[in-house]
């Protein structure tokens, strides 16, 4: 009996070990001469899974659209696009493994990563390999440090500055409390730029409370902000933490409005009481209720039974940017593609953008308010 039990344990354990492998390759590449393979990497499982899935699905829509229209004409040859998207769980080690797998699959351009921390872990590898890297949504400044890297979304400091202007100039708030993660590049980047800009504009940061990104209890920090008499709280965190923070603030009887960065996008999917985020404003370059993006939203909703968010749009624009670069370059050689990036204009879902030498996209910011449990463009 004892032997049987332990045997059973061994079997289940080893079954678990093996079930971990093999299910993360989304599409194995059947590459031929007329296929241009785009490799992607982002969290498809775990607490940031929404971002990765959205980017992947947005990119899939773009790939299908381009292929249905006959592919990308490069010189006199038409290429079909194919997407190989790997799961990096928003972890550095997994991202490097995913990237190496993609390179082994012989990708032509890299769309990723979706989040900042994994992206920073592999920028140097991508630079050494000389491949074109277009990150849809990794916003840490150093993600585009190298010449081969370009970015669709705003950088952290750009977001922080635009939010500071919005808080002080548009909302007229002068006493601002901040709650951020001091172990997360995204959060620190926004917090720093925001603080500097608010001071420059004559506002005051009355409380700046740090937390860890794995935390789920923020009541201590919120109580401190409450006693600082702040009239606005800036929370540059991802949506899951934002859901904890807003819920706990409302539990503590706080009625101070919140603003946040684009990490807040998707928050309505994880809050249990929409009233706790009512009135919150966050920055985003894309919103599904815009009439100019209606076609994309329709296709996306039909395919995935959900409304696309900013990350889906970033993924979509990322694929189009790569396609534009292919056309412009007239070749699919790495160095030609990279050189073409600064010459293209992409009329994307997240705005009309051009890229400069630093790798940043030039485009405008939009603000979204949560009203009656819905996203509302300001």
């Amino acid at each position, binding site marked *: 009996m004892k032997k049987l039990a332990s045997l059973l344990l061994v079997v*289940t*354990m080893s079954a678990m070990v093996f079930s971990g492998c093999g299910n993360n390759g989304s599409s194995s590449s059947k590459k031929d001469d007329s296929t241009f393979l785009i490799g992607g990497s982002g969290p498809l499982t775990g607490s940031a899974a929404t971002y990765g899935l959205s980017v992947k699905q947005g990119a899939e829509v773009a790939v299908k659209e381009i292929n249905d229209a006959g592919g990308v004409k490069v010189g006199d040859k038409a290429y079909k696009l194919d997407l190989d998207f790997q799961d990096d769980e928003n972890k550095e080690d997994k991202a490097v493994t995913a990237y190496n797998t993609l390179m082994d699959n012989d990708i032509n351009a890299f769309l990723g990563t979706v989040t900042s921390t994994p992206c920073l872990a592999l920028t140097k590898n991508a630079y050494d390999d000389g491949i074109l890297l277009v990150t849809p949504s990794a916003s840490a400044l150093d993600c585009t440090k190298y010449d081969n890297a370009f970015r669709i979304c705003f950088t952290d400091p750009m977001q922080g500055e635009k939010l500071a202007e919005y808080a002080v100039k548009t909302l007229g708030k002068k006493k601002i409390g901040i709650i951020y993660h001091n172990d997360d590049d995204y959060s620190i980047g926004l917090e720093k730029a925001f603080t500097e800009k608010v001071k420059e504009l004559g506002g005051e940061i009355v409380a700046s409370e*740090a937390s860890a990104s*794995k935390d789920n209890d923020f009541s201590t*920090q919120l109580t*401190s902000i*409450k006693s600082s008499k702040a009239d606005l709280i800036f929370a540059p965190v991802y949506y899951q933490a934002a859901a904890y923070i807003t819920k706990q603030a409302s*539990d503590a009887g706080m009625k101070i409005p919140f603003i946040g960065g684009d990490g807040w996008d998707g928050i309505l999917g994880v809050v249990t009481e929409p009233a706790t985020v009512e009135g919150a404003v966050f920055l985003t370059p894309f919103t599904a209720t815009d009439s100019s993006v209606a076609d994309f939203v329709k296709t996306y909703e039909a395919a995935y039974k959900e409304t696309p968010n900013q990350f889906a749009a970033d993924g979509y624009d990322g694929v189009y940017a790569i396609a534009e670069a292919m056309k412009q370059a007239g070749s699919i050689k790495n160095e030609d593609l990279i050189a073409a990036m600064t010459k293209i204009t992409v009329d994307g879902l997240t705005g009309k953008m051009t890229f400069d030498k630093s790798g940043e996209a030039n485009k405008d910011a939009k603000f979204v308010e949560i009203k009656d449990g819905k996203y509302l463009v300001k």
Partner: protein
Amino acid sequence: MNLFQSIMEQLLNGLRTGSIYALIALGYSMVYGIAKMINFAHGDVIMVGAYALFMGMTALSLPLPVAIIFTIVVCAVLGIAIEKVAYKPLRNASSLAVLITAIGMSFLLQSLALIIFSATPIPFKSIISMKGIKIAGVDIPGITIITLVVTTAIMVALTLFINKTKAGSAMRAVSEDRGAAALMGINVNRTISMTFAIGSALAAVAGILYICQYQSITPTLGALPGIKAFVAAVLGGIGSIPGAMVGGILLGIVESMSKAYISTELADAIVFGVLVVILLVKPSGLLGKLKAEKV
């Protein structure tokens, strides 16, 4: 808001998390007292409780009181099963073997939850909808009131059970001296099973309070409170029931106060610093009894 109100609110924050730690620490301490082992799978019982409540309310669509009882029963049965399958065969093995088994059990539970429910957090709407109250300018959230009432009631009931009932005496006897207790006609196996059941039922309650507070369920949600509660049990004197209560609440308050008035980054360092100091001064923990080794 003045300094007094702010300090009071921070104290309440600490008291709330501390009382959840205490509930979990009780499980560690009771099991250690009886079975002389650290049940590292205890934290994951909290997680199982959270998923059980979620499944009870969604998949089985049970009414709330039934769902709560269902959760407690699932955890109690799980506690007994863990003991029977993993620990009982090792009762006379070296303590290292038991320790490794306990860690393995913890990973097994986490991985099973990962396979069944995946790593994506499940949003869970709190089952407690009580409005907060305001006393002398101090906001007391409804969840804090419920948590404090529930944990106090459980601690009183547990103390009475252990000190006033026959089964409680049996538990104390087994923890004093297992061999002598068996000679006195106490069913040691049943007493150990009962201890695991009670400890796991307490973890179930802690799990319910925990997800009502944080409203999201993940396969690893039990890990952090589990570790903190273990520290609380050691702080209070592992094996001692009142020690676990005092240790849990003290830990919660120290954590909250150091986050609020010293530094968020240093909070964990301060918590463990306090543990080190207390163990240096009193190696058996705050309320632990130092037993002379029989040679």
